């Protein structure tokens, strides 16, 4: 009797556990969300009024003026254009290399399979380091070019192996019957494998797009002196770092950071932060079910 009762009626310790747990989770949500809401509120607040401080999650003097302002800066507009371009190009190239290599390496009859797999896997454990890569890029004349954003990181061994293990899970008979119908290897890849890979491709595409959208260091290192190739993250980095008074060596006379600083620091900075962040945040909840699967698959296989 006592046993069944215990099964249906939560004991005191279980209730305490629940209360603590729900409180903890609520705190996690607040700590995660508050900074974003705060940034959003400040970006929508009158920039002069912001200096008074005390904005939490609601603007005191609501205005879109900050957003109107930032879109008049050349750097941000160019940055937006280049960032969109590199995200599209980088994602497409990454998907192309990932699926092609993934497919080829899933073919047990392919004679280069073993060599290529090892060749790729090794790149996950070592790298030449920043300076040899820098010198290589310079010697290849890729400094101050758009290509530096999409070519060097085009192949990701991790993505290839995730896609390969997905293809391994598909029934082999599909490929065989296509072969009997006279399809060549490329046709099998294009007509049979690619359409079936959609779920894993959604995950990989998300990873690639986020990676491209968020990177700033390649701009800093290779294209820092090419304003026509600037990116959103790099522009934001310059603006945010300017007030901290560091990296002064790389500040040029009339760059955006200086201008922004003169006009109004806080609200403008936060408006740029929102512009840089929002596109990604809009996309990710819709792809959630895909990336949860992708993450699991990748970790288990690698």
């Amino acid at each position, binding site marked *: 009797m006592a046993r069944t009762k*215990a099964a249906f009626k939560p004991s005191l310790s279980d209730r305490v556990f629940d209360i603590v*747990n729900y409180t903890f989770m609520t705190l996690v949500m607040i700590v995660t969300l508050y900074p974003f809401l705060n940034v959003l509120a400040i970006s929508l607040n009158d920039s002069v009024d912001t200096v008074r401080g005390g904005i939490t999650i609601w603007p005191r003097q609501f205005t879109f003026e900050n957003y109107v302002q930032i879109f008049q800066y050349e750097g941000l507009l160019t940055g937006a254009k280049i960032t969109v371009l590199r995200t599209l190009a980088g994602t497409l190239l990454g998907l192309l290399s990932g699926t*092609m290599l993934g497919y080829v*390496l899933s073919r047990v009859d392919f004679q280069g399979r073993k060599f290529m797999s090892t060749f790729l896997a090794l790149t996950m454990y070592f790298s030449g380091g920043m300076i040899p890569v820098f010198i290589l890029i310079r010697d290849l004349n890729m400094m101050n070019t758009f290509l530096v954003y999409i070519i060097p990181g085009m192949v990701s061994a991790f993505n290839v192996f995730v896609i390969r293990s997905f293809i391994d899970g598909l029934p082999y008979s599909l490929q065989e019957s296509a072969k009997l119908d006279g399809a*060549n290897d490329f046709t099998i890849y294009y007509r049979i494998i690619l359409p079936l890979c959609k779920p894993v491709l959604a995950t990989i595409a998300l990873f690639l797009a986020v990676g491209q959208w968020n990177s700033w260091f390649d701009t800093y290192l290779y294209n820092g002196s090419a304003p026509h190739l600037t990116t959103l993250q790099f522009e934001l980095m310059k603006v*945010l*770092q300017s007030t901290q008074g560091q990296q002064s060596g790389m500040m040029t006379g009339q760059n955006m950071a200086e201008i922004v600083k003169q006009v109004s620091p806080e609200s403008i900075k936060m408006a740029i932060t929102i512009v840089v962040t929002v596109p990604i945040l809009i996309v990710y909840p819709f792809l*959630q079910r895909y990336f*949860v699967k992708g993450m699991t698959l990748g970790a288990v296989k690698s």
Partner: protein
Amino acid sequence: MKAVTEREGSVQPATRKKKKKGFWATFKEQKILYGMSLPFIIVVFIFSYLPIWGWLMAFQSYRPGRSVFEQKWVGFDHFVALFTDEKFYLVLRNTLAMSFMGLIVGFTIPILFAVLLNELRGSVFKRTVQTISYLPHFVSWVVVAGIVTKMLSVDGGAVNQLLLWLGIIDQPIQFMAQGSWFWYIVTGSDLWKEMGWNAIIYLAAISGIDQEQFEAAKVDGASRIRQIWHITIPSIAPTIAILLIMSIGHLISIGFEKQFLLGNPLVVDYSQVLDLYALNYGLGMGRFSFGTAIGMFNSIVSIILLLIANGVFKKFTKQSIM
């Protein structure tokens, strides 16, 4: 494999030589497969393997504009310079401190978070928490550094406001200007950004546990905490082990993004890490050879750590992750 041998058998008539087809014959037959893979393999060769060749620079006195054979060889001079530089030990201390703090916090908290998340009853609440917890993962370090600096600022930063309001402090703490805070700020920012994301893998492992075990435990009157301790944790132990080894392999290569973006001249004694050191000395001051030596040291230590971790793992589980 069976399919392959059968197929090869049917293609090769028995009258032919017993020997397998030659390399070039197969190459020709599989030219489409080669065409689909070789271009990418060449890209990998250029951008991942060629730079290893650049390691030779660490033993030379690199001058731009000369080929690798025309450079002056200096042996281990740069390594001697590196190991006698006092700054190097400071940098190594910072790297190791932040690596270990990151490993301990960044490894344990997501497990705890996943376990606790699994104990939530309402599925709407659970899903909401989970979705929100992923959010910071998708935001760049540039943005996170900006947000952290804002939250910790002296004038009106949320953290100082809260501490003042609670009466814990009576004047704002200068978080970003004091070196002693820097390691904690980096570790905390990393946790804030990646906790939810790193919990995904454990949640997946937990959802694979047989529910009957929990039912049985409930009938026996086991409390929630006992269920977690005796069922949930042991069930996800293999996943924990694998991920631990992988994080140890990446221990020293913590990168420099966080330190670069969160650091400032005031805290440089605590923020400088190996990669940043290589960046500042190597590229900033044009000492390419010295910078390469730093990078090489970093890579070699990483590989040794990974091999040790893998060896230990192999010994205990008879499995290899490499």
